[in-house]
Structure formats: C-alpha cells, structure tokens
C-alpha cells in the first residue's frame, strides 16, 4: 500500500467516524462509562453493599456520603454502583434469551414457511394479545418471585417480537439474488440461514434489541420495586426506590438518586439505539 492510499484510508475512516450521528457517539461513550462503573466499581470499592450501619441511617448527602445514606445507614452511591451490575445484567438476561429463541424460530418460520410458520405466528398473535407487563407478572406470580423466574417469564413472552421481526426480514431477504446464488452453489439450508441470511437481517434485530434493553431495565426495576424481581437487601435500583419510598418526606435522596441512575442508563442505551437506527437507515439508502 502506498503512503497516499494509507492517508486516504485514514481520512475516510475519520470521515465515517465524524459522520456518525451525535446520538450514537454520546450513547456509546455513556454506555462505555456505565459498563466500566458496573465492572470496576465493585472491585475498587470492595465493601459489602448490604452491610448495616444503623448509626448512619438517613444521612443527607455530604462529603462522607456523596448521595447520602438509606434507612439502614448504607451509602446510596455505593449501592447504586453495585446496582449497576445487577441492572445491566437484568437488561442482558432479558434481551439475549428472547432474541436467540425469537430469531431462531422467526428465521425458520420465514425460511421454511408452511405449518411451522402458521403455528408460530398464531402463537405470537396470542401472546401479543396480552399486555407484555401483565403476562410477565402473571408468569412470575406462578413461578415465584426472583430474578431467574423473571428471566424465564420474559423469555416466554419476549421471543414473539424478535420472531415477528426476523421472520419479516427473512421473508424479504430469501428472495434476494445472493440467496439464489447460494442455493445454486448447492449450499445447505443451515449454511444459507446462518452465513447468508443472518448477517443481513441482524441489523434490524440489533436496533430493536437496544430499545428492548431499555424497556427491560425499566421492567426489571419495576418488578424489583413491586417485590417480584430482585429482592431486598440486594442493591438493585428498583428495590432501592421501593425502600426509599417509605422515607420520601425525610430522605428524598434515597428514592431520587437510584431513579436518576435508571434514567441515565436508559438514556444512554436509547441514544445508542437511536444512533444505530440512523446509521442503518443511511446504509439502506446507499
């Protein structure tokens, strides 16, 4: 490669970076920071976020406790930092299993059609007739409260959205020339699905997954708030808000700050998703 072409490659790389929507850049930076806090925070702090210090109960924000303490004297900031890994984990475990199940079923339904398609899509119609939140709560109610059961419930309900999305995309994509070419080459269905169709339909699923991630963090913390997800004394933001609510008039910080943490994380991922959607739309146009 000549010097000039390297320079050109570099400048085009810089251009692509500069062309990124600002929402994507800001979202990426924020998400990076949040993940860093969730991963490194607990290692640096290495305290027990559930240990009681009753003598320090309900202290307002100060230099000793930046965001104050809760009714058990636990530092709110420390619990928020520990909560970051819980709430990110909630988002992840509520997104990935439904995505894998939904993408697989939707991909197969779209690719093969027939009775599989009919049964799966009618099943999806029925699941969608329930308000998402209500059906998740009903399933958690039967399985019993707790994070694992919440993940199971979300997987049972949440796969439908991914299945519908991927099925639609596959239906369109399987008509494309590159799929016919792959067929002519004699590739097996599995290879066509995984190596040819999946990369082409993954973008939309990814955009959807980012907004789904936001909704799931809100859902997970809501269930924590209602006592159906993470359980006290776990440092989960929804649980913290539920605890803090009882002291709202004396110590609003115990409620306000965990909520702000949720807003910041949700905002970061929303920006990321918005930017991602923008980039993909641009690519579609090209």
């Amino acid at each position, binding site marked *: 490669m000549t010097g000039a072409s390297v320079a050109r490659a570099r400048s085009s790389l810089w251009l692509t970076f500069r062309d990124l929507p600002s929402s994507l850049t800001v979202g990426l930076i924020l998400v990076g920071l949040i993940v860093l806090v969730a991963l490194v925070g607990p290692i640096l702090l290495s305290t027990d976020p559930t240990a009681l210090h009753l003598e320090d109960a309900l202290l307002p924000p100060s230099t000793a406790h930046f965001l104050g303490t809760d009714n058990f004297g636990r530092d709110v900031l420390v619990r928020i930092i520990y909560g970051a890994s819980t709430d990110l984990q909630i988002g992840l475990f509520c997104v990935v299993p439904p995505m894998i199940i939904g993408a697989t079923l939707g991909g197969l339904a779209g690719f093969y059609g027939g009775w599989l398609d009919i049964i799966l899509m009618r099943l999806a119609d*029925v699941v969608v007739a329930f308000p998402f939140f*209500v059906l998740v709560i009903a399933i958690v109610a039967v399985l019993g409260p707790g994070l694992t059961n919440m993940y199971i419930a979300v997987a049972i309900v949440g796969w439908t959205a991914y299945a519908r999305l991927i099925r639609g995309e596959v239906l369109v994509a399987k008509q494309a020339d590159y799929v016919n070419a792959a067929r002519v080459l004699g590739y097996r269905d599995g290879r066509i699905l995984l190596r040819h169709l999946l990369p082409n339909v993954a973008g939309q699923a990814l955009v959807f997954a980012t907004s789904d991630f936001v909704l799931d963090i809100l859902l997970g913390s809501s269930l924590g708030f209602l006592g159906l997800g993470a359980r006290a004394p776990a440092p989960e933001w929804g649980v913290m808000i539920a605890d803090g609510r009882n002291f709202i008039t004396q110590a609003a910080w115990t409620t306000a700050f965990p909520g702000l943490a949720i807003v910041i994380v949700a905002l970061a991922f929303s920006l990321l998703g918005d930017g991602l959607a923008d980039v993909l739309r641009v690519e579609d146009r090209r």
Partner: protein
Amino acid sequence: MLTFLARRFALLVPVAIGVTLIVFLLVRLIPGDPAVNMLGIHQTPALLAQLHAQMGLDHSLPEQYLIFMGRVLQGDLGTSYFYGQSVISLVSDRLPPTLFLLTYASVLTTIVAFPAAILAALRRNSVWDQVVRFTFIFGISLPAYWLGIIFILAFAIALPIFPVAGYGITFLDHLRYLFLPAATIALGVIPLVLRAMRASLIDVLRADYMDTARAKGLPPRTVLLRHGVRNALLPAITVLGVNIGWLIGGTVIIENVFAIPGLGQLMIFSVSNRDYPTIQAVTLVFAVLVVLVNLATDALYLILDPRVRGSVR
C-alpha cells in the same frame, strides 16, 4: 360494514381460544398437582377436594380446558382464596377505576401529543422537531413508578395541590385524584404516540389533496385544519389503540404507586397473596381489554373513513 365487523369477529375466535388457553395453562406451568400448587398456603383438605372437582383434574387436559371454558363463558372465574368472594364480582368492582385511569391517560396523551406532533411535522428538522425527537428518547427512559413518586413528592407533599393517593367518590374527585397518576402514565406513552403521529402527519401533509386545497387558494390555516388535521386524526387514534398494551402495563404499576383500587392493584396484591384464581381472572380481563380496544379501533376507522368502507366490500 357489518360483514367486515363479522369477519373481524371471526378472526378473533382463534385469538380468544389462544388467550383462554394461555390463562388456563398458566397455573399448570409448575409440575405436580396444579390444585396443590394453586392453593399453596391456602391449602386445606376440603379446599383441595373441592378444587380437584372444580378443575376436573381427574379428566384429561383437553377435557379440563373445556370445563374451564364452560365456566368462563358462564362468567364463573372461580373464588378468590384471599377475599373468599367470587372473582368476577371482585374484578367488576375493580374495573371502573382502571378504565377511568386508562381513559384519562389517553385523553391527556392526545391533548399533549397531537398539537406537538402537528408542530413537529409542520417544521420538519427545525428546533421543534429536534425537541420532539429528544423527548421521545428521554420519555422512554423514565421509569414510570419513580416518576410517580417524584410527582407525589412535588405536587402532593411539597406543593399540596393534588391528593397523595386514592380514587375519591364523585366524578370530580376522580378527575382530581387521578390527575397525577394519569399524567405519569401519559408521560410514558406520549413519546411513542408523538413519534407515530408525527410520521402520519408528514404523510398527510404531502398528500395530493393538500396541494389541491392550497391551489384552490384556501388560507393556509384552513388547509391545515380542515384537510390536514382531520385526515391525520385517524392514524393518531390508531396509534393510541396499538399502544393500549403499554397503557395497561403503565396502569398496573401506577395504581400500586398511587394506591388506586383498580385491577392493577388487585393483581399485584393477589400475586403477593398467591391468589391464583384472581391473578388468572385479571390477566384474562386485561387481554380481553386489549382485544376489544383493537376491535374498536378498527370499527372506528370504518365509521370515520368512507374509503375503508368502500374497500372492504
């Protein structure tokens, strides 16, 4: 039009069967004797025997489903373990506050979202449009239950304008008591509705009849209001109908924040008391509500838009 509605109803049958099937299977998710699982802490030998007979547990699963359906169709949803009352009367007592709240939140959503969407659609890519876009991103990032608590703190405790919780007795009471909860739910739905309304308005503004109206020399205001807004109202209503599931989800959690004696509060309360017949019934009622609202949205479309009527026949 009647044939259209009849056909729409016919399509509902498989969904209705599926919905009842899911509600039926719900308590059978756990392996073992469903009657034992359902009764849980409420278990007594007499109740167990009664439930066995009631659920028809000595029959096959399909037969059990038919028994269940037969009872549902007769309006018998079982007896609540906690309240010792028939579930159907429990649910019908709790339905009005929930419906009131849902309607109130929908009205507030429309009042805010529709004018904002018009502004954003008229001045595309302006500051206004950017504001609308950011409102969407920001709005979907707010946890409703937390916002509700902050509202209580701000507008019921610090500035005692609204009651902290409850439902009230008269219609005016309801309007006052439910304002903060309805506003909280609306704030969660406005971003979704706003974005969809903006898109549909942009389509309407580009339509040929808008050009015709302008070419006739009608004043811009008349063009916008008589031709633009009127045609955009319909998609706007649909957007609200499509989002009924989110509205209900919001209602369930917000009723628990503001202590409103509706179905959502009943549901969470029944979950903590493992009152399965009530959980089943509330889940079923919410699903029926979603299906009915979707049907009503379709019917409304039919009534308001003569073109749909023509194309259906």
